[in-house]
């Protein structure tokens, strides 16, 4: 569990944007995995299977009305002051902004970008998580990158510089 919890938690966080939700999803992922071990082919690597469960759970959580109300309540309860610009490094800011830009993409595009680039999975592992062919991963990545470029050009002017030569 220790070996995989970080990747599962990070994917859930990227998809949901909330550490508490991400922790719930991480726990639920391992419980589901435990209860569905008979469906798992032990000859295959475990990480892609766990990440697929996490992605599905996060997707369902995203769509639930409960989550919407829970986030509203959380805003009321916490009202945390976001860190100031000085507190965050330039790299942090850029990576956060890119994340915000990725969040404008359709859910399947977000997932493939997070898996391939943020979590640094290979094309083969990404294909395994998403249950698609490696060639399909490449074409979907290409499509997601084109969409992301369009998002950056229209809504994230500060990231535009990073795309020009």
């Amino acid at each position, binding site marked *: *569990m*220790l*070996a*995989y*919890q*970080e990747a599962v*938690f*990070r994917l859930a*966080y990227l998809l949901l944007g909330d*550490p508490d939700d*991400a*922790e719930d999803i*991480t*726990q639920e992922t*391992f*419980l589901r*995995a*435990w*209860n569905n*071990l*008979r469906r*798992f082919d*032990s000859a295959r690597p*475990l990480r892609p299977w766990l990440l697929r469960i996490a992605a599905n759970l996060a997707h369902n959580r995203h769509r639930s009305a409960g989550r919407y109300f829970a986030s509203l309540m959380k805003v009321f309860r916490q009202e945390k002051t976001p860190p100031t610009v000085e507190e*965050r*490094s330039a*790299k*942090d800011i*850029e*990576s*956060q902004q*890119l*994340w915000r830009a*990725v969040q404008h993409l359709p859910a399947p595009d977000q997932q493939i*970008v997070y898996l391939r*680039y*943020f*979590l*640094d999975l290979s094309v083969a592992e990404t294909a395994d998580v998403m249950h698609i062919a490696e060639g399909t991963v490449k074409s979907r990545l*290409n499509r997601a*990158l*084109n969409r*992301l*470029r369009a998002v*950056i050009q229209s809504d994230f002017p500060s*990231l535009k510089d*990073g*795309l*020009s*030569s």
Partner: protein
Amino acid sequence: MKDSTLERLERNLKAAGRAFPYPSTPRIADKVMMRLNQPVRSRLLRGRWAGAFLAILILALTLILVPPARAAILDFIQIGVVRIFQVQPAPIPTSQFQFPVTATPKATFVPSILQLAGETTLPDAQSKVDFPILLPVYPPDLGQPDHIYLQNAGSPMLVLVWMEHDRPDKVRMSLDEIAPGGWAVGKSEPKLIEETTVNGQHAIWAEGPYMLQISNGNYELKRLVSGRVLIWTQGEITYRLETDLDLEEAIKVAESLGPIR
């Protein structure tokens, strides 16, 4: 051919992934174990779903036997106060026969169960523990234990030892009765782990050699176990039977436990 803007975007995304300020990953192993254990009782009470859930639970417990998946998903298996870790045994510390009580736990290696501290009698032990001491009546020639040790630091742990009739220096069988509380019993990477039942309750059968570690904050005791061990719970008490018997016979011993006669 990919255009240069997309290539730069790919590079930027990879860099963003490396620099991303993720929140620190919480430790979830204990919470998952708690959730695996806790819902059983409550869900079992839900009428018509009880059977289905029980079937799934039994299946999940059976599937613990799939070694690669089990080892990867759980770092330990727990029953009662006993945890079986899927890790290499720690190196054996140098021999020390005393069983110290210190503020800071220090591992003590005990070569034999007969070198435990706290030897007492059954009536004395019974007067000091809150739970009824149970003794096996199988095999029929077993009789009462030859040695009784009570480790009573915080919560009691009773160790009952039977010797071979014809070899008074050789341990025939030992039974630990461990009350809930501060004691934690761990064993590192037994050769064989098998799920079974004692009186219909979940039990684990493990075969050595493995390192047994018992600790409660004050004590930390290590012993190399080469035999076979059956672990089960009954009420709040965890039982741990160490024996040379096979599984079937060990279960008969476990299911023969009764009050002191």
